[in-house]
Each structure stands twice: as structure tokens, then as C-alpha cells.
């Protein structure tokens, strides 16, 4: 399923930050978002994930296709690694819960930590668990916001492999990141989409 974004404008705190963003992500490809801090990468990702409404433009092919991984991993400290994954698999209603969970554990080298409470994981291990969550959702489009934060070099390598496998099996991904993951796909620099400031005298409904 192709994700098509046309002429999208996104707002942060009622102010448009990016406008006229258009792209398409076909299965098997990844879109890497680039741009300086504060340009609106997170806002764009949240809008595409359906967490906030678009200011203008359209998003097609996103409904019930997206697994979203934010800065926060949504882990419960008192549940074990396996229980955390199992919960998300159940919430997303996949059929073979146990199988998918053990697959995801293997993908991110978490098998030895499977029964440890998430509270006792290191920051990098938590991040790996948060990313492993994407795999158990069964959703084809992965949207990731700075996924490699607090991962070491070998974990980043491993993560890149998992995403590459996901792409090869017909999935797609949209990633905001500063490092080069060597994935097949296109890069999109958001700097050119930055919304131009409006005229001050144009005192309209947005108070600007």
C-alpha cells in the first residue's frame, strides 16, 4: 500500500510550521526525513500517523497501516520485556501473538532479557524493546522519530538490518534521523518547506 502525502501543511501550537509537503512512499522503500532541530519533523510524523489533524492538504493510504514509534517507548516498568511486547501485539490484534513476539525478541537480540522487568533494562535496551514493538504490530508502514537515540553502533547496525528486512518483505518506513542507515529509499530535506512568516497586518482568524 502506497502512502501518498499531497500538499500537506502541519501546525504546531496553532502556527503552521511546514507547508506544501508532498511525497509518496511505495512498499519496499524508506523515506528519510532530514532537517535542523525544530523544523517540524516530529510534527510532520505525528500528523501522518494521525495523532494530529492536518492544517491543509491530504494524506492517503495511512489509515490503519501505521505503526508509530515516538521518543517515548510506551513501556511499563513492572511488566517484563515479553509481556510488554505481547500486550502491544494483542492491542494491534495480530493473529500469531506468541510467534511474532519471539520473532521480534530475536530481531533485536532481546531473548536473554525476555523475562526481565522493563524497569531493569538500560536506556539502549529499552530503546530496542520500543523498536521491537513495531514488528509485533503487523502494520506495513513504520513511522519512527529519531529511532537510534541511545543505541550503540552494533545495535544501530542491527536496527538497520531489521528495517531493511521489513522493506524487503514489502513494508515501508518513514524515519526522522540524522545518521546514515544505508537503507534503500529517498531523502527528504524539510528545510525548503518551512512556512514563510505571514504579513503582520493580515489580522485574520489566526490572529496573525
Amino acid at each position: 500500500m502506497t502512502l501518498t502525502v499531497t500538499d500537506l501543511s502541519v501546525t504546531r501550537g496553532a502556527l503552521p510550521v511546514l507547508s506544501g509537503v508532498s511525497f509518496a512512499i511505495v512498499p519496499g522503500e524508506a523515506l528519510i526525513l532530514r532537517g535542523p532541530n525544530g523544523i517540524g519533523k516530529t510534527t510532520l510524523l505525528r500528523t501522518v500517523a494521525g495523532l494530529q489533524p492536518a492544517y491543509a492538504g491530504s494524506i492517503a493510504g495511512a489509515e490503519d497501516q501505521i505503526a508509530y514509534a515516538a521518543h517515548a517507548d510506551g513501556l511499563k516498568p513492572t511488566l517484563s520485556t515479553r509481556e510488554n511486547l505481547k500486550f502491544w501485539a494483542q492491542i494491534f490484534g495480530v493473529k500469531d501473538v506468541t510467534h511474532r513476539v519471539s520473532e521480534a525478541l530475536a530481531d533485536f537480540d532481546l531473548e536473554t532479557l525476555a523475562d526481565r522487568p522493563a524497569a531493569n533494562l538500560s536506556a539502549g535496551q529499552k530503546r530496542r524493546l520500543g523498536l521491537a514493538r513495531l514488528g509485533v504490530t503487523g502494520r506495513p508502514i513504520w513511522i519512527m522519530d529519531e529511532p537510534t537515540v541511545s543505541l550503540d553502533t552494533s545495535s544501530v547496525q542491527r536496527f538497520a538490518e531489521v528495517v531493511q528486512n521489513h522493506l524487503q518483505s514489502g513494508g515501508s518506513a518513514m524515519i526522522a534521523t540524522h545518521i546514515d542507515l544505508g537503507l534503500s529509499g529517498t531523502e527528504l530535506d524539510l528545510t525548503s518547506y518551512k512556512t514563510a512568516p505571514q504579513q503582520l497586518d493580515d489580522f485574520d482568524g489566526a490572529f496573525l
Partner: protein
Amino acid sequence: MSFWEYANPRKFLTTSERVLPLVWGLAAITTLVGLVWGFFFTPDDFRMGSTVKIIFLHVPSALMAINAWFMMLLASIIWIVRRHHVSALAAKAAAPVGAIMTVIALVTGAIWGQPMWGTWWEWDPRLTSFLVLFLFYLGYIALWEAIEDPDTAADLTSILCLVGSVFAVLSRYAVLFWNQGLHQGASLSLDKEENIADVFSNPLYVCMVGFALLFLALVLYRTGTEIRLRRMKALIARERLEG
């Protein structure tokens, strides 16, 4: 020309600026005339003595306390349906005015209750309902103050106003059921024989109009303030965005 043109903040500001002096003036004159008439030129009631003069404050403020909430409800619905910013800001502007009106109604009622019922406070259904109404006003104002993003605040307070209205009505029935009460029936009504005498009702009508005009003036002025505050925030946010 459509009424909705005033939903444009700039249009609202210029128009309200033009009519406000008139509304302030009318409000001041009517309220003053009503209160002076009521205070100096009405006889004492045979039963309540001079305390009857309190109704010229008590009844109009109670009326406006309820009407202010109705206005907020209406403005909230307009915001939810049509998303006119001015509407949401008008609701925000009306809340403190409504809260003060509620306090006036409660305080005048309590002071009047002291010689009449022999107690400052009675858990009478009407007094209790007003106390609950006051709590609703407090919650509503506190929610506006607590939320940073103005659109989020407008959305959340509108929904609180809708839900709160339903529960306020429920509370009214619950309180009626819970205590039948000492409070007299409505002071003014169209079909009752025991309507209060004309000597009292005429200045009372003037006071009610005066309070309504005062409410209008306050809300128009405060909405203007809220619009400016909103624009100020937007400008500051934009400056920050430009770095």
C-alpha cells in the same frame, strides 16, 4: 451582511470599540437609576421591612449568574460547530463575570437570610444550586488558566461547559430532591397571583436591564482584551519561530 462577520477578530474589535462607550454609558445609567430608585424611593415591605431593598441586587445578579452560563454554553457550541475564535474567547471573557454575579447573589442572599431565616447559611436548594454553579465557574476558569495552547484550551473548556451544563441541571434536580427548602418562590413570574407589588417590580426591572447591559459591556470589553492577548501570544510564538 451576515452576523458571522463579527466572528473576524479585527471586525469585532473595531465594531466593539465603536459601540462600547454607548453600552458602558447605558449600563451605568440604567444600573444607577434602578439601584437609586430601589434604594431611596421604595417603601418597606410589611413583612420583610427594609430588607426588601436587597432584591434589587439579589435578583438581577442571580439572573445574570445563570444567563452568563447560558451565554458561555452557546458560545462554546458555536466554537465547537463553527470554530470562530471570537466565540471561544467570549466564553472565556464571560466566566469571571458570571462567577462574580454568583458571588453577589450568594452574599446578598446570605446577609438577607441572617435576619429573615435567622441564619447566615441555609442548605436551601436554590442557595446550594448557586454554590454548585459557583464551583462550576471556578473549575471552568481554572481549566482555561491551566492550558497553554489557546486552541486546546478553547476545545477542552467548551466540552467541559457542555458536560458541566448537563451536570449542573442534574445537580439542580438532585438538590431539589434532597431538600425542599425555605427559599421563597420566584420573585417575578407571569402567571402567579402572589407576584410582588408594582412599587418593587418596576425598579427591579430597571435593575435587571442595568445588570444585563453591564454584563454586555463587560463581556464585550473583556472579549476585546482576550483577542489582543491571543494576538500577542501568536506574535510572540511567531517571533520565536523565526528565531
